[in-house]
Structures are given as C-alpha cells and as structure tokens.
C-alpha cells in the first residue's frame, strides 16, 4: 500500500461505531430518506487525499494566483479592460459569490450528515474549496472597486436587489435540501459537472479577448478544484445507481428538476455575457450551450449511465429551443430596468447585430424591432418590477416578452405564476417547498422608482446607459 493510500485509509477511518448512542442519532436517516444502500463504506473518493496534501496543493494555487492578479492591476490591466465587460462582471461576481458561499454551506452540511464516511471527508474538502473561491471572488470585486462604481455595495445587493434573487433562491434551495444526496445531485452533478465548464472555461475564454486576464486566472484556479467536485458527484451517482434499482426514480427526478433550475437560473442569464457584454466575441452562447451542456454533459452522462436506466433530463428539448432567444430576451428586459440596476446597459452596435444575425437566425424578426424603437428615442424604462416566476424568480418573459409561456396555478387562495412548463412542473411536485418565496415584484407593489431603488440599496448614479461602447 502506498503512503498516500495508507494515509487516506487512516483518514477515512477516523470514525467509530458509537457505543453510548445509536448511530442513527448521529447520522439521522431523515437526511438520506428514500435512498437505498447496504454498505456506506463502499462509497469511495477517487482522489484519496489527506488533509496535509490538500493544504499544500491549495497553498501553491493561491501563491500563484494572488501575485499575478496584483501585478495585473498594478500595471494598469483593470483600466484597459473593455468597459462593457466590466459592466457584465458587476453582475457576474455577486452571483458567483452566492454560488460559492452556498456551496460552502451545503457541503459543510453534507460533511456532517452524509452516511458514507468517505463522502463526509470529500465534502469537507469541498466546503473549504468553496470558501477559497468565495474569498477570491471578493478579492476580484475589491480590485474592480478601486477603478469603478457598481461593486461597492454587492453584499447589500445580494440580499435586496431583484437581479440577484434567482441565484440566491437557487443556492439557498441547494443548502436547504433535507436529503444530503439531493444537495450532492444539485451541486456536484448539475452545478459542477454540467455548468462549471461553461462558467469557468467558456466565459474567461471570452474575457481574455476583452482584456480580463485577472478574471481568467481566477476562474482557472477555481476550475482546478472543480475536477475533484465533479468526481464526488459522479462517484456518488454511479454508486447509488449501481447499488439499488430503487434509487433510479429518485435520482431521475432530481436530475430533471435541477437540470431545469440550472438552465433557467445560470444558463439563460449567463448568455448575456458572451453575446452582449463581450464587445469582442468568440462563440455565441447558443453554441457554448450546445458544446458544454448538450454534447459534453448530457451525451456523456447518458452514454455512461444510461445502462442503469437514467434518461436525459426531462426538459432538455425546451432548454435547447430557448437558447435561440434567452440571452436576447434577458438583455432587453434588463435594458428596460437600467434605471434600477447597479451596472450600466447599452444599445447593441451594428457589429453586435451582425454577429446576432449570423448566429441567431430569428434575431431580427424577434428582437430587432425593440432596438429600432430604442434608437428612435424610446428609452423603454418601466415603472415597476416584472412578474417574477414563483420557482426561479426570473421575469416571466420567455421565450420572448411579446408571447411568453406564462403558466398559472392557484395555491393558498391566490395565484402563483411560472415562466415555463419546467418551473410549473417543479412547483406541482413540491408545492410546499416552492410556495414560500415571495417575489420582489409583490413586495414592492405600489412603490415608485425612487422607493424601489432605496429598497435595493442603490445610491447615486448607479445604473443607466454606458455611452462608450
């Protein structure tokens, strides 16, 4: 046995059979109810890492990243970034912080309550990873904050601004999963395996074209940990599917549900970054989604686990169809709320529209008239917040605001609205869980723009239009 394996085995075995209290009292089965497995010791962590090794590896990463970012900033890199890209990062970083900090809390809970000792150990390391990522995102915001407005009050906006509520909802939902394996499914299988390549590889590849070398470095050091997080998810998924046939329907439901939530709350909004906030563009979001999510994630998972009966996510076709419009619909909806944002919006240029025409065949027909009216002098500003989906908290504007797929359900003597069949399907499966959220559009009914800005902690000249683009 190698030293590494011996150390790992010893670490993994740092638990004992309790004699003074029932094991179920320490690891209550309510935390993994509905999951069947005979021997939790069989769950294995493919990385077999000791804490000492972990600390050494992570220290090297941080010792490489932080000096590089400081040098980038010191020699004027931040000021040379494209202004549009900076406006996009004002939205991206608070959302990333939501994600990483939520993941920290979620895996702290998994490391406490999971029934498999090796999963508890792996979740413990992941929890610390997520703290490192959260802190690095804050360091990035601190760097930007020395050069521009729109980063200073991110912690308040994270709590109060409508733009950040979907991400808050998503990650609080992952933290609040009663079943630790649902947390692992939502976070490790969907966030990590499906979406981190898109976020931490796809986006910085465009960022570099727009001068954001610090962001590329930060995303790279983040993604270096995600491989381990993906392995936790894949190992868990395979173990549970192999272990007992009764786990399949539970896992399929979680896959269907979290796939849709991730598509809606991360995939759709993320599209505005490569398609709009990137002045110099690479792949359009539609192609990134096809490459990273459909071709790599879904096809790979079905090829690997289809033999156990796992099917592609239920709303995959809806998600693919939506990517034709989602970035454009969200960007113009945001434009209508530019007087309530902490970042600035802008009117697409001729070069942007040429790119859209080339990569999105229906852009002119579905979105062109809106921008024609803006160019003719209509600011399009709206007086109150849009109808927000009860489940995802995004505006009910999909696929396009002119003919949205709004779905309604009566619940508790009032009507709850959903942006899509996917969100309605989730609500109907777990109405108690998803009926508790109260959208900011309802909270702020009857308030004027000044009062809404005050509620969202927006001061001074934040928001508006970026003239130089």
């Amino acid at each position, binding site marked *: 046995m190698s030293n590494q394996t011996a150390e790992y085995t010893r670490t993994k075995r740092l638990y004992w059979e309790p004699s003074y209290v029932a094991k179920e009292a320490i690891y209550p089965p309510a935390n993994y109810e509905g999951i069947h497995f005979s021997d939790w010791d069989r769950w294995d962590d493919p990385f077999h890492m000791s804490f000492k090794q972990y600390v050494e590896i992570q220290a090297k990463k941080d010792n490489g990243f932080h000096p590089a970012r400081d040098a980038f900033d010191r020699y004027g890199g931040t000021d040379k970034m494209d202004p549009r890209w900076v406006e996009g990062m004002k939205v991206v970083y608070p959302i990333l912080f939501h994600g990483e900090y939520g993941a920290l809390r979620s895996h702290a809970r998994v490391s406490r309550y999971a029934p498999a000792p090796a999963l508890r150990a792996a979740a413990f390391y992941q929890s610390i990873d997520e703290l490192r990522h959260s802190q690095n995102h804050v360091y990035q915001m601190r760097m930007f904050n020395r050069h521009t407005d729109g980063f200073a009050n991110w912690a308040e906006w994270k709590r109060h601004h409508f733009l950040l509520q979907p991400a808050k909802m998503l990650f609080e939902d992952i933290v609040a999963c009663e079943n630790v394996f649902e947390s692992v499914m939502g976070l490790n299988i969907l966030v990590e395996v499906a979406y981190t390549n898109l976020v931490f590889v796809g986006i910085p590849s465009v960022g570099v074209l727009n001068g954001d070398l610090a962001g590329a470095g930060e995303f790279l050091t983040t993604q270096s940990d995600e491989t381990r997080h993906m392995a936790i998810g894949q190992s868990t998924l395979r173990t549970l599917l192999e272990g007992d046939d009764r786990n399949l329907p539970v896992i399929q439901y979680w896959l269907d549900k979290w796939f849709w939530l991730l598509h809606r709350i991360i995939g759709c909004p993320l599209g505005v970054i490569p398609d709009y906030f990137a002045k110099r563009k690479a792949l359009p979001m539609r192609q990134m989604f096809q490459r990273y999510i459909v071709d790599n994630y879904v096809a790979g998972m079905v090829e690997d686990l289809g033999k156990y009966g796992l099917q592609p996510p239920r709303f995959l076709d809806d998600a693919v169809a939506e990517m034709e419009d989602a970035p454009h619909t969200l960007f113009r*909806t945001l434009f209508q709320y530019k007087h309530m944002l902490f970042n600035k919006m802008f009117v697409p240029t001729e070069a942007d529209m040429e790119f859209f025409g080339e990569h999105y065949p229906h852009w002119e027909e579905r979105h062109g008239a809106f921008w024609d009216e803006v160019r003719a002098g209509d600011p399009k500003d709206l007086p109150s*917040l849009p*109808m927000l989906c009860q489940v995802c908290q995004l*505006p009910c504007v999909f696929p396009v605001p*002119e*003919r949205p797929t709004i779905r*309604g359900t009566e619940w508790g*003597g009032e*009507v709850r*609205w959903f942006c899509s069949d996917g969100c309605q399907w989730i609500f109907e499966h777990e109405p108690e869980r998803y009926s508790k959220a109260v959208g900011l559009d309802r909270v702020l009914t009857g308030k004027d723009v000044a009062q809404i800005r005050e509620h969202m902690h927006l001061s001074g000249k934040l928001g508006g239009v970026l003239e130089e683009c």
Partner: protein
Amino acid sequence: MLIYARADGCSTPALLMTPEEEWPVKMFCRIALSTLRADKSRERLPFNSRTGEQLDPATPLGEAGFLPYDLLELRYA
C-alpha cells in the same frame, strides 16, 4: 386589488397593478395598456389568463372572478 396585466405583442412583461374593485374592466384595460406602453393601434380583448374566460368590459373588476395576483391578458382580437 392586486392584478397583473399584460398585452399581446407588447415588449413589456406582465406588471402588477393596484386597481380599485369598482373600476369597470374596460377602464382598467385602458390604464393597463398605457402603463404597459402597448401599441394601441390594434384591438385587444380582455381575458382572465388563469381561467381562459373572456371578460365583459362593463363588469366591475371586483365582480370579474379574479383571485389575488390573477393575470388580465389583453389578447389580439
């Protein structure tokens, strides 16, 4: 009352409004179209989106069968 309103073909999302119960449907529709900044050149008819029922323009909103947070849709005629 608390009612959402939206209009076919309009780029404005559904917005939550606070009309009085005694307002006729027709009066609310006129105000909603302005708030939504909808193109008024095409005729639209009022529907309760949840039930699919077309609404009588003369009926007061309070008697039109709306639940809290219902959606009045102005659909192309």
